[in-house]
């Protein structure tokens, strides 16, 4: 065989290896996104579980706020029934967050409720859950960002197009209560 054939065969071989590597990386990244989404989902469920107790506690003090309770309950049911797609889940969660904020605002008008230990504990739990949701959300979005970059970059976009890997949607949701945000770590410059 002539050297040209060897070179051509080598180029084809390298091309196939690169194609396989790129395809496998898309599969791996997509799985990573699904895994991180399941973490977001379980944190959201933790918040759904908290809401009935929160509503019940507030109801004990603010019986006249029926509209608020109903909107929270409705938003919770709607969010729980969401199809698990990041875009639709974002919309449903934001409705729930709005309703939750209204519920927490009610406590401002009822000093006895604000002083209630159970209510304070639930609020604390809500903050913890909010922090966990936001951390899981940031990780999910980080994975989506990496994946989408590859879907849109040359030459991996050719593999994405050929095998149907499409850009994913970010999960954006407001905070029901003020979360602590992503950590920042800064030390002095290293010595020798």
């Amino acid at each position: 065989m002539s050297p040209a054939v060897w070179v051509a065969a080598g180029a084809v071989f390298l091309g196939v290896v690169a194609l396989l590597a790129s395809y496998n990386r898309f599969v791996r990244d997509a799985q990573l996104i699904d895994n991180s989404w399941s973490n977001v989902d379980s944190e959201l469920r933790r918040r759904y579980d908290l809401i009935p107790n929160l509503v019940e506690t507030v109801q004990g003090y603010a019986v006249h706020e029926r509209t608020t309770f109903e909107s929270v309950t409705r938003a919770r049911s709607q969010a729980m029934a969401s199809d698990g797609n990041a875009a639709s889940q974002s919309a449903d969660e934001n409705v729930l967050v709005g309703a939750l904020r209204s519920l927490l605002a009610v406590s401002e008008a009822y000093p006895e409720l604000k002083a209630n230990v159970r209510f304070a504990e639930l609020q604390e739990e809500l903050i913890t859950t909010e922090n966990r949701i936001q951390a899981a959300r940031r990780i999910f979005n980080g994975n989506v960002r990496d994946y989408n970059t590859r879907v849109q970059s040359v030459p991996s976009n050719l593999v994405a197009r050929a095998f149907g890997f499409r850009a994913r949607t970010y999960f954006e949701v407001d905070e029901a209560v003020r979360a602590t945000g992503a950590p920042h770590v800064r030390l002095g410059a290293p010595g020798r």
Partner: protein
Amino acid sequence: MDGTAVALLVVFMVLGLISILSWKRHADRVSAFPQVARQAGLSYSEGDAFGSARVAFPLFRLGDGREVTNTMWRTSADGAVVRAFDYAYYTESRDDRGLMGLSTGMGLGLGPGRERETTPQRTYRYFTCALAEVPAVWPNLRIVPQKGLTRLVNALDGADIHFESGEFNRMFRVTCEDEHFAHAFVDAQMIEFLVATQGEFEFETRGRWILIAGKQQPPRGFPALIGLHDALRATVPDLVWQTYPQGPRASLDGGFL
């Protein structure tokens, strides 16, 4: 004076200057410790006030001439005595007619005959560590930064545990004797915390101890490193505290090394 003599003189002068600057830098660093500790409200000892390197972390078993110096410490809000200290050790390479060999660190060398013929060269390694005891007993978990070629080699052996963050998986190699513990310990918030350290430190749990180790820090980095250890312990998920056995803190000799 001929050209060679002048060149030699210049070389000696440059070497001398480098030595003096290096010595001065070291002296300045050492003299800054008491003041930094005082300003930060920390206790300080020039030596190893706690026998810190006796805890059985792999880092404290490497090389020879292991030495702990410049220990700063305080009792944190959760009751943990957190100490930050310089740690150094050396490895010896032996140049024997072009052959190089590493010291085993256990006095075994390459055989007595060969050792007599060789000239050992010492390579020193310097770290700053933060160490504290927790009221629990945890499996050995190592979270080690990885870059470039190391990452490639690590990927090939397949021993590391993967988590839900691509960025975290690229930045760190995680190994643990108990994978369930690793997944409980490294939750989403812990991932964010560790990623925020930008791969500058290694994190490890072993028995009752948590170690953070990184490049040698300037004195003002010590209080910050103690703060980092506090933040790390505060980020440990509730699930870990609830699931793994708890108990009172033990002394270094408490049998949980």
